[in-house]
């Protein structure tokens, strides 16, 4: 099946710093999403971005589908950004399966 690799696995930031999280995938995708899991376990969808660039406040994401990677940018980080960030994909070959394959996540800690 498709492989999803996220880097770095762990990241510690000072509040106010910027960061870039990366997601590489091994095959063409129909669907790519970024999720944030807060320290209490709740997963929230951040971006649905199979291609192109989107921005939402301090967060933005870019997917270069032809090169099989996606980047999540966090600017002016805040302590509330702490948690685990997951990238998840639906392979193009499995389009319409509705099944996402998740990476192992990047654990972000923002310290005051």
């Amino acid at each position, binding site marked *: 099946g498709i492989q999803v690799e996220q880097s770095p696995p762990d990241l510690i930031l000072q509040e106010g710093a910027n960061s870039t999280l990366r997601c590489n995938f091994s095959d063409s995708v129909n669907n790519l999403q970024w999720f944030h899991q807060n320290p209490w376990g*709740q997963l929230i*969808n951040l971006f649905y971005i199979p291609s192109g660039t989107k921005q939402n406040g301090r967060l933005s994401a870019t997917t270069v589908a032809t090169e099989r990677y996606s980047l999540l940018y966090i600017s002016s980080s805040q302590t509330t950004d702490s948690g685990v960030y997951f990238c*998840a994909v639906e392979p193009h070959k499995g389009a319409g399966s509705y099944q*996402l*394959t998740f990476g*192992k996540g990047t654990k972000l800690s923002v310290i005051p």
Partner: protein
Amino acid sequence: DVKVTQSSRYLVKRTGEKVFLECVQDMDHENMFWYRQDPGLGLRLIYFSYDVKMKEKGDIPEGYSVSREKKERFSLILESASTNQTSMYLCASSPVGLAWKNTGELFFGEGSRLTVL
């Protein structure tokens, strides 16, 4: 707002017990999913249901079964719990068709942390 509700946030069970994890969604979504989350492994799909009484195995179905008798409810069953099933279990739901194609949104519950002693 979409709400996916899992019946128990924390459970402690003994080896060999039968365990039911319940999940209810209120957005009339066709698809429902059960994932398992373990440190360093991300989320892995256990079972998936795309309609009432329909189910499909995910990546790690061994030791689990599911039930979907009503559209809004999807249950995960551990017939005989074992210590290696200690984990965080996450339920999710999603729409289908154009709604999925245009937004791809997957809505998660808050998780059920199961400890098997």
